[in-house]
C-alpha cells in the first residue's frame, strides 16, 4: 500500500480508472434520466441549465448518456482486450515453447496483422457482419492478439533460459507443463502491465469506430458517436463535443498512468 502511495502516477491512474469503472457500473442501475429519453423542449441546454451536464440536440441528458457511454466503452474495451490477451498469450507461450520454424511463421503472421490499421480491419468486419458491439469487440481483439503474442514471446523466451527451467527440461519434463508451472507465473506482471496499456488504446479505438458509425447502433449512447454527432453543433453547443472528448481523454490518460505506474511498481529491476 505504501508502495502505491509513494507513486503519484500510479495513484492518479488508479483513482481515475476506479472512478470510471464505478460510474460505468452505476449506470447499470441508476442514471439521472433515461439516456434515450428525448425532450425536444429542452434541447441544447448548457450544463447546469438542464441536468448536470446539459442536453444534446434531441434534449437527451448528457450526464446520463456519458454514464451509459462509459459502460459501453469500458465493457467493449475490456472484453476485446480480454479476448486479445488470452489468445495472444496462448500464442506467445506456445511459440516460446516450440521455437524453430513455427516461431518465424507465427511472428511474421503477427507482423502482417500489425500492418493493417485496426480501423481498416474493423470496417472490413463491419461490411461483412454489420456494425455493432460484436464487430467492435472482434475488430479490436484481432489487433490485440499480435501485441500480446509478441510481448509474451519475448518475456517467455527469457524465462526459458533460466537455470531452473533448463533443469526441468533436462529432467525431461513436458514442455507444456513447464510453460504452465514456470513460464506463465513469471510473466504475469508483464502481461498485466500490457493489458492496462492496451485498454487505453482499445478505448480510443472503440471511440474511433463509433465515431465512424461502426460501433453500437443508436440509441445506445457511445462516446465516439456523441462526439461525431456534435460536430455541426460545436459553435452553438460546445459542451456536446467537449464532454465526450474529455471523457475519452480522461479514460485513456487514467489507464496509461495506471499502466506506467504498474510497470514501475512491478519491474524487478527498479526494486533493486
Amino acid at each position, binding site marked *: 500500500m505504501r508502495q502505491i502511495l509513494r507513486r503519484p502516477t500510479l495513484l492518479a491512474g488508479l483513482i481515475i480508472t476506479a472512478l470510471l469503472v464505478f460510474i460505468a457500473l452505476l449506470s447499470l442501475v441508476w442514471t439521472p434520466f433515461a439516456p*434515450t429519453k*428525448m425532450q*425536444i423542449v429542452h*434541447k441544447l441546454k448548457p450544463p447546469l441549465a438542464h441536468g448536470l451536464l446539459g442536453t444534446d440536440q*434531441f*434534449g437527451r441528458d448528457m450526464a446520463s448518456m456519458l454514464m451509459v457511454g462509459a459502460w459501453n466503452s469500458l465493457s467493449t474495451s475490456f472484453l476485446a482486450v480480454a479476448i486479445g490477451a488470452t489468445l495472444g498469450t496462448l500464442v506467445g507461450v506456445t511459440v516460446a515453447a516450440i521455437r524453430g520454424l513455427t516461431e518465424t511463421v507465427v511472428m511474421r503472421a503477427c507482423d502482417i496483422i500489425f500492418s493493417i490499421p485496426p480501423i481498416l480491419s474493423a470496417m472490413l468486419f463491419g461490411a461483412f457482419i454489420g456494425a455493432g458491439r460484436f464487430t467492435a469487440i472482434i475488430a479490436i481483439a484481432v489487433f490485440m492478439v499480435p501485441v500480446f503474442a509478441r510481448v509474451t514471446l519475448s518475456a517467455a523466451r527469457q524465462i526459458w533460459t533460466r537455470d531452473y527451467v533448463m533443469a526441468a527440461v533436462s529432467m525431461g519434463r513436458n514442455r507444456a507443463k513447464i510453460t504452465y508451472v514456470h513460464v506463465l507465473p513469471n510473466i504475469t506482471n508483464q502481461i498485466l502491465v500490457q493489458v492496462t496499456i492496451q485498454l487505453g488504446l482499445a478505448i480510443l479505438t472503440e471511440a474511433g469506430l463509433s465515431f465512424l458509425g461502426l460501433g453500437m*447502433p443508436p*440509441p445506445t449512447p457511445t462516446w465516439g458517436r456523441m462526439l461525431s454527432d456534435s460536430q*455541426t453543433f460545436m459553435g*452553438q453547443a460546445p459542451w456536446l463535443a467537449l464532454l465526450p472528448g474529455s471523457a475519452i481523454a480522461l479514460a485513456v490518460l487514467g489507464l496509461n498512468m495506471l499502466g506506467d505506474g504498474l510497470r514501475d511498481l512491478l519491474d524487478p529491476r527498479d526494486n533493486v
Partner: protein
Amino acid sequence: MSRLTLSTSTGFSRRTFVVLSLAAGVALGALGSAQAAPKTSLSLGMSVEPSGLDPTAAAPVAIGQVTWQNIFEGLTTIDKDGKVQPQLAESWVISPDGLNYTFKLRQGVTFHNGEVFDSAVAKFSIDRARASDSVNPQKRYFASVDSVETPDAATLVVKLKSLTGNFLYWLGWPSSVMVAPKSAADNKTNPIGTGPFKFVSWAKGSQVELAKNPDYWDKAGTAKLEKVTFRFIADAQAQAAALKSGDLDAFPEFAAPELMASFEGDSKLTTVIGNTELKVVAGMNNAKKPFDDKRVRQALMMAVDRQALIDGAWSGFGTAIGSHYTPNDRGFVDLTKTYPYDPEKARKLLAEAGFASGLSFTIKAPQMAYAQRSSQMLQAMFADVGVTLNIETTEFPAKWVADVFKGGNYDMTIVAHAEPMDIDIYARDPYYFNYKNPAFNEVLKKVDATADASEQAKLYGEAQKILAEDVPALYLFVMPKLGVWNKNLKGLWENEPIPSNVLAQVEWSQ
C-alpha cells in the same frame, strides 16, 4: 562554425521577410483595385457531386442542379414560381381532343458546338428519351408519346396515345432537355446544350467550371456572369468555413440547419429560407407484414409528433405534411390532422391489429444527417407506443437503390423525395412502397384525362386525401431551402420549385 552559419541564415531570412512582405503589399493593393469593379465570376457550393453531367441519362438531382437552364434547355421550362414557360418552343397549339401538340420552334438557336437546333433535333431528343434502350430517368413520362413528326424545320408535332395533362410541365424537366445529335453520346462528360453557359471543365471530386456563352440565342437572357464554378463540398463544417472565408460566394442548399444561426451577424452573407419540393417520407414496405395492415401504418403515423421531429432533426426548419405533397404544389390540402400525434390512440390501434405486446422492425436509414436524426427521433417516439425500431445505416445512393428502391428488401426506410408533383409514384408498379390501391390509380388517371387546372387541383386533393388515410409512408416534413450567399449577389432563386441552380440572371450588384 555553427554560430556563423546561424547568423548568416538569420540575416537571409530577415531579408526574405522584407521581400515577401513587399510582395504581399503589392498583391493586396492589386486585389483591392480589382474589387472596385463588380465581380463577374461566381463560386457556388453544392453538397453532392453529380455522377455525370447528362440529365437525360441518370436520376441524381445534382446533375440537373449543375446543368439545367445553364447548359441545357428544353422545349418548355419551369420558372421560379413553378409555372410552365416557353423556351426552345416559342408557342404551341393543342388539338381539341388534347392528343396532338404542335410546337412552333425558335429559330436561330445553335448548340455550343455549332449544331443548329431545329425540328429534327427536337425529334431526335424526344425519340432518344423514349427509345426502348433509353436510360432516361423519367422515361415513363414519354410513354404516352405515339409519334413525333417534323412537317418543317420550325414545326414539331407530337402525337400522344392517351391524354397527358402534365405533358408540357414534364417537357420542362431536366430529363427532357434538348440534346444535339452529334454530341449527345458524350454529354455525360462533355455536355453540349443551347444554354447561356458553356461547359469548360470538370475536375472530378472537386469542381465543374462553366463560362458564358456569348452567342446565346436570347440577347436579353444572356448570362451576366463570365464564369461560374460549382464546387462540391460534402462536409457541413467545411461548407460554413468556405462561405465565411469568402472562398465560396453562395451555397443555395446549405446542408446543416444547426449552423444557419452562425451566419447571423456576418456582414458579408445573407441567409434566405425558401421552400422546396423535398418531402421527407418514411416509406414502408406495404407488401410485407405487419405493414400490409393499414391499422399498423396509421398507428405509427399517430405515434409521430411531427413538430418535435422537425425541431429535433432539422432545428425547426421545415413544414409538417400529412400527405405526399408540398404547400407550394397546386391543389395542396393540409392533411396533418388526419392522423395527428396521439400515442394513446396509436397504442390502441396497434392492439386492435394484434400487436398489443409490441412490435419490432428495422429502418434502413441513409447516411444523410436528416435521415439519421429523423430515424433516431422516430425510434424514441415509437418506443413510447411499444414499438422497437432498429436503425440500420445504409449508403445512399448506390446501396440504398440496390437494396430498398430496386430490391424492395426492407421494412421501413427514410428519404427525401426531391421531384416536384411526384404523387404518382404511389400508382407505379413496381415502386418501392409496394402500395396498391386501384381507387388511387383511378384518381391519377383522371388527372391525366383533363387539362383543366382547377379540375386537376381538385383531383390532386383527392389523391392526397387517399394517401393521408392509407399512410403507405409516414409523411413527416418538407425541408426548406437553406440559402446562404453574399449580400451583393442578386438573382439567385429563393425557392426551389424544381431542384436547380438557374444562373443566367445572377449578377453582382457591386
